[in-house]
């Protein structure tokens, strides 16, 4: 036994990993993505009822969100804890993987009257950054169209009530929307995005 341990010790010295732990190589993108789909659905398109679809989002947007979870800048239930489990390189691989997947929308309940108002409000306050009715990924602003309603509601709560950080432009627009339409305006927007299926 002693001899065996001695040999292992010498091997460790030679490998230059004496003080460190020998980590396996970086996992592949699909191996990493496999750890996401249990909550975020097949290829990142969630079957609901609340966890968001992450398929089709832009690479930059994905990286920005994961970094904000890691730092705690963005609030979450489990994602603040889970994001810390991945290196920058791993996050980039996942970002690349999900950016290439199709955002598959599911039918959701919504109020058509509210959705109609929401469409109008979206054009006025949101479309400039969340392009094409909130369905574009290219704007790096996050896909809203067809996103799960409870998730949209929670996000809006975080922005309006829980102090989640907004970009300057968004803060201005959100303030204007709330001043003019109050919580009804927010509710209308959520119904509009949920109506897009």
């Amino acid at each position, binding site marked *: 036994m002693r001899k065996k341990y001695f040999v292992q010790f010498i091997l460790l010295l030679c490998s230059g990993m004496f003080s460190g732990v020998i980590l*396996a190589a970086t996992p*592949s993108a699909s191996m990493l993505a*496999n750890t996401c789909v249990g909550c975020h659905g097949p290829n990142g398109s969630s079957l609901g009822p609340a966890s968001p679809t992450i398929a089709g989002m832009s690479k930059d947007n994905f990286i920005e969100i994961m970094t904000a979870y890691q730092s705690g800048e963005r609030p979450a239930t489990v994602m603040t804890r*889970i994001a810390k489990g991945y290196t920058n390189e791993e996050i980039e691989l996942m970002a690349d993987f999900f950016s290439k997947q199709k955002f598959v929308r599911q039918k959701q309940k919504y109020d058509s009257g509210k959705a109609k108002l929401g469409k109008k409000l979206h054009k006025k306050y949101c479309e400039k950054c969340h392009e094409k009715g909130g369905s574009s990924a290219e704007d790096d602003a996050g896909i809203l169209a067809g996103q799960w309603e409870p998730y949209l509601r929670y996000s809006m709560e975080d922005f309006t009530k829980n102090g989640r950080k907004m970009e300057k432009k968004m803060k201005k627009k959100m303030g204007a929307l709330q001043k003019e339409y109050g919580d009804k305006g927010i509710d209308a927007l959520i119904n509009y995005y949920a109506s897009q299926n």
Partner: protein
Amino acid sequence: MFNINRRDFLNLAGGTAIVSTLGFPMVSFGASKRVVIVGGGIGGATAAKYIRMADSSIDVTLIEVNKHYHTCFMSNEVLAGSRNLDSIKFGYSGLKKHGVNVVHDLVTGIDPVAKKVSTKGGKTFSYDACIVSPGISFNWDSIEGYDAKVAEKIPHAWKAGSQTGLLRNQITSMKNGGTVVIVAPPNPFRCPPGPYERASQIAWYLKNNKPKSKIIILDPKIKFSKMGLFTAGWQRHYGYKSANSMIEWVGADDGGEVTKIDSRKLIVSAEETFKANVLNVIPPQKAGKIAFAADLVSSTGWCPVNHQTFESTRHKDVHVIGDAAMASPLPKSGYAANSEAKVCAAAVVAKLNGKEAPAPSYINTCYSIITPTDAMSVAMVYRLADGKIAKVKGAGGLTPADASDAMRQREVDYAHSWFKNTTHDVFG
């Protein structure tokens, strides 16, 4: 004779699949690689699907005795009446669509030398790689008076399905003012927070339907999973630690270890004796029966495995995943089984294609729901370090003790989302 290398073979195999869908007869170049999967629970079903998705030239047979699988996760919501038994029931048609050959039979033996699996129905299946996902079995001799026969009347409900239904019926038939006694198991066991979520869910039903009733948990342990969060939740909702608390936990230090039950009178003997109106005994556990028959178990009662490939350290080309595998620090949870299955599937596919096992990544997230609007979770990301599964430092952990009511309500929604997406990932 054809002289083709492996890559050509894969290309050709893919090509023939396309041809065959056009109505031409399937052309087969030599024998394809065969994987036999024993057990159609979370681990087995996930492995079958992920092997087929990664390499459709591999012939995958999954052998499972039951036509349906009831998930253990969310089965406590059935006890509360928040969902019905059918909502946790899954079949194998989804796997068949992925080209998995599903056989309903009971595996009785695995011959690691001849590389053959044999069944009760008298069939044998040859394999290049075998993946065993045997789940758990019970140590029936550890509590006097409780065995498989008694369990037909006094449920363990630790394998979901008819046992869950039986326990639900007993709870709904119980008088207001009755006592439910839950006998918790010693470590290690399937679903560490499960007994305590169960107490919470039964308490929810009793609070709303039979508020004079009580739940006593008798535990051979001095502490349990998510203990601080559970007891805080019980204080919020069920008067825990007050004079008329609905839930009482008796740990090992207070004489909670049960040695005997009287199944006729429903009397439970720990340091003191307790009279139950409904009794739920969750016995001590070990790897599923087939793991013992196939000599995959160490003296611990569980199956030692290589943490990168889940290949048994006892028998070559036989892999063990799920609750039966010794994969600590991964817990014995459904989501861990799902994660292990994906890592194992990737390793098996690589090996059958003459490649090295890929670098793994593992995850676990476990939700515990204590009322329909209050849940908490534990999460962790794992990687391989020094050949062993290791927690990523700084990652994971519990729902914060000071999480707001709103955040705990969100956790319920995300728990249900996890259920929907994960069960699709496994069976869809």
